[in-house]
């Protein structure tokens, strides 16, 4: 459940969404990607009203959603999983884009023929993000980047996500490790019980006593 959410992501920004489990973070991403219907309110993307528009139209408009728990097609190859991200594209750059995406994840290059379900958790997350990128989004939304991943893998993924952002893709990131989220983001929103209770520069939120107590446990 969400109540009167006001949120914006500027072009090229990296914005984090933090809050307890059940606060509404995934519901919010679902609303943006057309998987969850908004009862009221409007969602505008690149000047266009996309409120309650079908998911495939939203993907075409330039928003890709990397869902929580990766949700790969386990029995399909890594390559097919990645190419599925470009399912709606009709341009000729899909192949060269695959090379560009693999540039972010060199570890996947010699695993393209492997069944995605046999990869390690970190590699699966790379495929999930790569699949999102194959839609050539202007805005990439990643739900739970670090879920179930070894600290070192999280480090690498954080670097990659920042690289993707530097290369011009806007990012909306849901992350339970609030310290990581506030380290990488330009700005952040704090959600509680379906409402935005706090928003601001990530660096400032990190020093906010309420945030430190409620989410960092410091």
């Amino acid at each position, binding site marked *: 459940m969400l109540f009167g959410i006001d949120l914006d992501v500027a072009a090229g920004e990296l914005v984090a969404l933090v809050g307890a*489990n059940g606060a509404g973070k995934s519901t919010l991403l679902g609303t943006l990607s057309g998987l969850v219907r908004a009862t009221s309110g409007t969602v505008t993307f690149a000047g266009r009203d996309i409120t309650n528009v079908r998911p495939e139209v939203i993907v075409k408009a330039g928003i890709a959603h990397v869902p929580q728990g990766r949700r790969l097609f386990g029995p399909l190859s890594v390559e097919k999983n990645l190419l599925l991200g470009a399912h709606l594209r009709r341009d000729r750059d899909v192949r060269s884009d695959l090379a560009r995406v693999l540039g972010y994840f060199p570890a996947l290059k010699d695993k393209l023929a492997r069944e995605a379900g046999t990869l390690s958790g970190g590699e699966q997350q790379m495929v999930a993000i790569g699949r999102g990128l194959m839609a050539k989004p202007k805005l990439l939304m990643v739900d739970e980047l670090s879920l*179930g991943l070894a600290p070192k893998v999280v480090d690498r993924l954080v670097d990659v996500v920042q690289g993707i952002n530097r290369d011009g893709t806007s990012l909306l990131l849901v992350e339970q490790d609030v310290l990581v989220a506030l380290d990488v983001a330009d700005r952040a929103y704090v959600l509680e019980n379906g409402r935005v209770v706090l928003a601001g520069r990530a660096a400032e939120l990190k020093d906010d006593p309420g945030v430190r107590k409620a989410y*960092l446990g410091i």
Partner: protein
Amino acid sequence: MSTVATAQLELQNVTKRFGGVAALDGVTLSVAKGDILGIIGPNGAGKTTLLNCISGIYPPDSGDIHWEGASITGTAPHKVARLGIGRTFQVVKPFGSMTVRENAAVGALFGSAEARLAPKAAFVRADEVLELVGLTPKAGLSVTALTIPDRKRLEVARAVATRPKLLLLDEVMAGLNNVEIDEALEMVRAVHATGVTVVLIEHVMRVIVGVCRRAVVLDFGQVLAEGEPEVVLRDERVIEAYLGERYAKRLRA
């Protein structure tokens, strides 16, 4: 190297292969009664396979697993459970059509031999474990109404309802924020305080440092390091293979 006289659970040279890959490659470790042991290591290092071998889901290809002095190598999962080894699963799968209380009662009904109770007694046990994990106020709800942290609590409750002497927890704190983790740690301490030995897999160091007395690091199916968490997490090999520089810096800070 870790074989001690008081071991409740002992693994000797346990190996498990999938195709050509050794998911576990000669793992030897022991768990003393009353211990809280953390198992950490890279994704794909063999942590879940280790729990699966102990709980009987996979028979090891070679090596021995001893429980309270007797071999349980290759014993079927339901028998292992009735011998007193309970476990949770990484992906929780509660019975969606049942209430929280009914889900907990299933553990009591089908768990250890002495707990194979009449339904009425199973519900008494269910109420005890829901109290222990802090789900009493939600006992009557459908499981579909539970948040992720509460579903993880229920997963623990179902395992505890089988009256285990050893509880194996597979990433029950993944996806929780720091404050939720601290609450979950209280739950683990509460279960441990009832006399249950705990072995847990986590990637969250707040958990390992917060509750474990010992940590074992698996890498490529082998034991890379073991000892007190504070020591293990400063081991250069562990930082190189698993923690990475960012965490190491955070730890030093």
